C-alpha cells in the first residue's frame, strides 16, 4: 500500500472507500497511525516539515456548485476570521470568485486562497522574512516578526492576503492572528501537523461536492500526483511563473 496522500474526492470505488474508512479509523486510533495516511514525511513527531513533501490542492471547478460556500464557512470556523460589517477591511482567507465568460455567458465559481507558490512573490518581497515557505511548500506568515508593511499584499497576484485592521478577540489558539499583521490561508497547517485534512477540504468532501483533492505532489503514487499526471490542470496566472500548489480542473 502506498504511504501516499489523503484525498478528499468522493469515495467512488471500493478501494477509495476502504482507504477513507482506514483513514477515519486511524484518526480515531492514534495520530501516529494517521500520519501514515498522509505519507511518512512532514509530521511533527518526526521532526520539522520535510522538503520531501510538497502539499498541494487540486480543485475541480466542475464539482464546485455555484452558491456553495462550505469551504469558506469551514475556514472561518476553523481559523476564527469573521465578518465585522466592514467588508473592505474584513479578512478573507478563502473566497469564492464568480466568473462569467462574456462571450458564452457561462458562469463558474472558483474558490481562491493562498496558492502556496513554489516561488512566492510575498516571500521574495518581505523585508524581515516574516513571509516564509516551509520545507513542505506551505507559505505562512511569522506573526512575531511581521512588521505590517503590507508589501506582500502588494506583491501577491492572487489577492490572497489580508491585513488585520482592528484589535481582535476570541482567537483560536491554533490560528493566532494579530492586529497590524498580515495573514492568509495556512493550508490548516495545525491540522496537517496532526495528520488531519485542511478544514475546507474535509468539509467539501463531507458536505459539499467533493471538489477538493489534497495530497503530496512529490509522491508519484498519491492520488493528486496521479490525477495531475493524467490531465494537467490549470493554474491561476501561470504566466507569472510562481508555480502555485493550488491547481484547478475545468477552470
Amino acid at each position, binding site marked *: 500500500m502506498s504511504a501516499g496522500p489523503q484525498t478528499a474526492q468522493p469515495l467512488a470505488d471500493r478501494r477509495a472507500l476502504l482507504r477513507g474508512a482506514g483513514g477515519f479509523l486511524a484518526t480515531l486510533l492514534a495520530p501516529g497511525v494517521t500520519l501514515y495516511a498522509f505519507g511518512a514525511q512532514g509530521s511533527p513527531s518526526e521532526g520539522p516539515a520535510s522538503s520531501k513533501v510538497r502539499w498541494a490542492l487540486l480543485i475541480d471547478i466542475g464539482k464546485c456548485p455555484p452558491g456553495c460556500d462550505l469551504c469558506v464557512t469551514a475556514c472561518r470556523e476553523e481559523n476564527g476570521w469573521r465578518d465585522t460589517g466592514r467588508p473592505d477591511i474584513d479578512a478573507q482567507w478563502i473566497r469564492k470568485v464568480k466568473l462569467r465568460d*462574456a462571450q458564452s455567458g457561462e458562469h463558474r465559481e472558483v474558490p481562491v486562497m493562498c496558492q502556496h507558490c513554489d516561488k512566492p*512573490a510575498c516571500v521574495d518581497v*518581505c523585508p*524581515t522574512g516574516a513571509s516564509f515557505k516551509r520545507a513542505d511548500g506551505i507559505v505562512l506568515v511569522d506573526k512575531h516578526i511581521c512588521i505590517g*508593511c*503590507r508589501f506582500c*499584499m502588494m506583491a501577491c497576484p492572487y*489577492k490572497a492576503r489580508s491585513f488585520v485592521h482592528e484589535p481582535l478577540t476570541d482567537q483560536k489558539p491554533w490560528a493566532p492572528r494579530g492586529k497590524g*499583521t498580515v495573514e492568509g490561508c495556512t493550508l490548516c497547517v495545525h491540522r496537517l501537523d496532526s495528520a488531519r485534512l485542511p478544514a475546507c477540504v474535509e468539509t467539501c468532501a463531507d458536505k459539499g461536492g467533493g471538489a477538493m483533492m489534497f495530497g503530496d505532489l512529490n509522491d508519484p503514487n498519491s492520488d493528486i500526483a496521479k490525477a495531475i499526471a493524467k490531465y494537467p490542470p490549470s493554474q491561476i*496566472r501561470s504566466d507569472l511563473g510562481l508555480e502555485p500548489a493550488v491547481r484547478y480542473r475545468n477552470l
Partner: protein
Amino acid sequence: MAKLRFRRLDQHSPAFWGVIGLQVFLLALGLGAALYMEEHGHAVTGMSNQIVWGLPHVFAVFLIVAASGALNVASISSVFGRPAYKPYARLSGILAVALLAGGLAVLVLDLGRPERIFVAMTTYNFKSIFAWNIYLYSGFMLIVGAYLFAMMDRRASQSAMLGKTMGWIAFAWRLILTTGTGSIFGFLAAREAYDSAIMAPLFIAASFLYGLAFTVLVLATTGRELGHELMPKEIAEKFRGLLSIFALSLLYFTIVHHLTKLYASGHQGVEVFLLRDGGVYPLVFWLGQIACGTLLPLGLLALARDSVTVRRLLPLVSVLFLLGGLAQLYVIIIGGQAYPLKLFPGMEVSSSFFDGTVASYRPSLPELLLGLGGISLAALLTTLALRLMPFLPELQTARE
C-alpha cells in the same frame, strides 16, 4: 574666487517663529494621528485590503524621493565641478538628510506594527527590495553625514580630493537609492500599473525635480528671514534651467511609461482607467500632475522675461512642482492599486472580496496628518540644523 563664508540662521522674525510653531503643531498632530492609528488599527484610516498603501505612503515616498534629489546641488558642485553651486552644497546635504528622516518617519509610523522597527533593522530577507532599501536609507544618512563632514570640518575641507571622493560616493549612492525606491513598484509583477523597469529612472527624474524645488523653497524662506538674498540672479537663472530640464525629463518618462502600457493590448485597461475612466485618478493626473504640476510652472519659467521675475517666481513654481509630485505619486500609488488585479484575464469576475471591482479609497484625516507631520519633521530638522551650524552661504552679491 573669494573664500566662501557660511553662517547660521540666527535671526528669527515673529513670522518665522509663527511658521516654526505651526510646524511643531503639525508634527504633534502627526504623532497623535500615528498613536491613534496604532491604538485602533488601520480601520480608522481609508486603507483597506484593496488599497493597502494609502496617503501616508504618498507622503513618505514623496519625501524619500525628494531627499535624494535635494543632494543635487551638492553633486553638481563637487561631482560636475561647477563652483557656482558650491555655496549651497552644505544646505543641500542637510536638507537631504532631513527630508529622508521625515519620509522614513511617516513610513515607519504607518506600519501595522511600528514598534517592531527594530525587527526590521535586525532581521533581514536579503531578497527583498524593501530590505535593500533599509540599507540604502541608512547608508545614505551615513554617507551624506560624512560628505557634510568633508565639507565643513576645518581640516577635512582642506582636501579637495576628499570632498570630490565623498561627492562621487554620495552621488552614486543617491542614484542607487532612488533606483531602489522606484523598483519597490517596478518589481511588482503582479500589478499592471507598475511592473516596469522605467519606474526607476522615472523616480530618479522625479527626485531631481522635487529635491531642487525643496532647495529653492528653503533658500527663499531663509533668505527672506536673514534679509539676505540667497539666490542671486545668475543662480536663479541656473535654477530656472535645471527645474525646466528636470520637469521635462519627468514628463518624458511619464509619457513613455504610459505609452508603453497603452501600446500593449493587455495593459490598455489600466491605462484607460488611470487616464480617462478612473474618476478621481484621471482628474488628479491631468489637472494635478500635468496641468498645475508640470505645464503651468514650466510655462511660468519659460515666459518670465528677466532674472528678477524668475527669482520672484521660483518659490511659486517650486510649490507647483511639489504639488504636481504629490499628485503624481497619488496616481501611481493609490490609482495603481485601485485598478483590480486580473486573476482571470478575459473573464468578468466578482466576489465578496471585491475581485474585479475598482477599489474605493477616501483618505482619512489621521493619514493626512501623519503625512503632513513628516513634512513638518523635515522642516523642523532643517531649521534646527541651520540654527545650530553654519550651513547657509554668505554671498558677496547678497544685497541686490
